[in-house]
């Protein structure tokens, strides 16, 4: 009987080791979740940062914000948000950027013209188990509509809406007038990124 026990335990250990070797032999970032778990994470996790929230944090000079502009360099050069780093979506997992994307001190906010690119980048970070990343809901288009060109609410609107409107108007004059041009801010680097500690267990498989 003991032989069997040993064989089984041995098999398991070898299997686990093998899996580990296979995963870490690759220079790719390691998948932290299985496909089926990814869907649960995507549908359950808090994904979005609203433009209002972003404006609020930018206006208070929040040092923990890491803005990632996922559009092409050309578009980024025309205009982007203050302090944003330009990482086109296809390069977002390149080694040189891993310290920006994968860390749990700063809040990473992805954006493009809309939410599409950001949704993809965000999904990848979740696949790799990175924390603290968000999608700017509606992207720059929504940024223009809500922050730069806020619409006055109807007279019958609630007080909350009026308060939001007055905030947006203030934000509009804060961000307007060329203060947020891409060119002038590209030099600004993110404060030293802090490496995220590797987590021990690779999370239960689900396939």
């Amino acid at each position, binding site marked *: 009987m003991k032989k069997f*026990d040993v064989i089984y335990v041995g098999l398991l250990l070898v299997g686990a080791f093998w899996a580990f070797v296979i995963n870490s032999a690759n220079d*790719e970032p390691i998948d932290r979740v299985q496909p089926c778990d990814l*869907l649960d994470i995507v549908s359950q996790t808090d994904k979005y940062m609203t433009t209002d929230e972003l404006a609020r944090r930018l206006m208070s000079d929040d040092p923990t914000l890491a803005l990632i502009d996922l559009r092409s360099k050309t578009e980024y050069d025309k205009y982007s948000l203050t302090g944003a780093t330009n990482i086109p979506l*296809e390069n977002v997992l390149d080694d040189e950027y891993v310290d920006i994307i994968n860390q749990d001190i700063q809040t990473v906010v992805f954006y493009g013209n809309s939410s599409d690119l950001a949704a993809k980048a965000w999904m990848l970070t979740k696949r790799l188990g990175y924390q603290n990343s968000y999608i700017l809901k509606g992207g720059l288009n929504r940024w223009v509509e809500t922050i730069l060109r806020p619409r006055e609410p109807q007279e019958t609107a609630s007080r909350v809406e009026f308060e939001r409107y007055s905030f947006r108007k203030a934000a509009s004059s804060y*961000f*307007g007038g060329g203060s947020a041009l891409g060119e002038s801010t590209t030099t600004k680097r993110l404060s030293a990124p802090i490496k995220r500690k590797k987590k021990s267990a690779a999370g239960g498989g689900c396939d």
Partner: protein
Amino acid sequence: MKKYIIIYLVGILALTSCNSKESRSFVLTPKEAAKANSQTNIISPQLLGDIYYSRNNTTIYQFIDLRTPQVFENGHVKNAINIPFRTMTRNKSCRYFLNQDVINIIYGESTEQAIFAGFFLQQIGVKNYFIVLGNYDFIKDNIIDHYNVYSAHYNPEIAQYDYARIVAETAGARNYASSPKAAKPAATFKRKKKSAAGGGCD
């Protein structure tokens, strides 16, 4: 006792690792996924309309609705099947996505949801699908109830505004000289008076 424990453990392992979920793993590595072409599996409104209005003649196109069953009940594309986003990988649902005899047209409650679903399928190596940007309301308003495939706002990832100019125009443009682009089209579209405008109708 030990044997029982071992048997129990292995049994659990076998069950947990394979129960109820389709055993698919990622085909694309994260880096490959980031670099994958994102446009090939997006369907245009015109094609969507063409498929919708010629569907009686063909069964190859399968609409898949990712919204919750409750919302699905309140209205959906005719003959669409309901696979809520979270259940996409369940064995039952997975069949539909892996079925290579049909082309799946996927829509959800928002553009992002459709993109998540499409990007997910791309990562596990499924290619025979198209996603609909916008959402069900978009299809209903601009394809089914009215045919409005050209005017309807479809690809949100296009810049809607000249951002730099708007920033410049907002609240006292300091330090920024706006450089409006030169006027373009006119020339090629001009209409010349025809010789005999015979009872012209304008």
